């Protein structure tokens, strides 16, 4: 599943120092659970994103381990404390070894 994976992140462009902001993330991925069967009755192999991390300037915000029970197009909402201006890096790890990443810059103001 290297094609058609598109991460989307909703984060504020500006925050006050020390403010707690809510981050929403979504990544398009079929999250094949490994439980389904195709038309011929053969099981479809598992192919999911198994880990998601969010870091701000090298400091961890949240690290999620995911199982096949997470829905298609995994969505996460969580809160982050913004100590100062910097870059928020979001990373998703696929079963097939691919890593998808996106960055949002947050300014103080």
């Amino acid at each position, binding site marked *: 599943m290297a094609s058609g994976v598109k991460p989307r992140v909703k984060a504020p462009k500006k925050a006050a120092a020390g403010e707690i902001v809510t981050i929403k993330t979504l990544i398009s991925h079929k999250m094949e659970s490994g439980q389904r069967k195709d038309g011929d009755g053969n099981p479809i192999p598992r192919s999911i994103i198994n880990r998601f991390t969010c870091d701000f300037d090298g400091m961890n915000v949240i690290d999620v381990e995911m199982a096949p029970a*997470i829905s298609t197009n995994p969505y996460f909402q969580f*809160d982050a404390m913004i100590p100062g201006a910097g870059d928020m890096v979001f990373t998703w790890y696929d079963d097939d070894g691919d890593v998808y990443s996106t960055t949002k810059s947050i300014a103080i103001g």
Partner: protein
Amino acid sequence: MEFSRRDTLVLGLGAAVATVLPFRAFAAADEAIAAFTGGAEMGTAGITLTAPEIAENGNTVPISVSAAGAASIIVLASGNPTPEVATFNFGELAGSQDAATRMRLAGTQDVIAIAKMADGSFVKASSTVKVTIGGCGG
């Protein structure tokens, strides 16, 4: 409609079976819980699991967990083929120990959330979700 003695017996038996059945699915979930807690005692205060009472589509069931002061929270679905759903590990910049996601549920079952607190204790919350259409394919 009047109940005969036989009807009442059958009804009672049916109810008894219905109560016992869900517990058979708990074995896998119990193992997952033991792996996370190491068999420690679990309290019930300080954790909130928000899940819908009825989910029409088991493919995307929105849930959220919250436990102030938790180091990590594990979410389990006791009736799924694999009970593990997700483990949220909160880092030093987590604004709150609060997270929301969407999960799959194979059928009507209990969703369980267990938080590991910073002091090493565990708290647990669970919620029953009725699922109209299961979300695990077939």
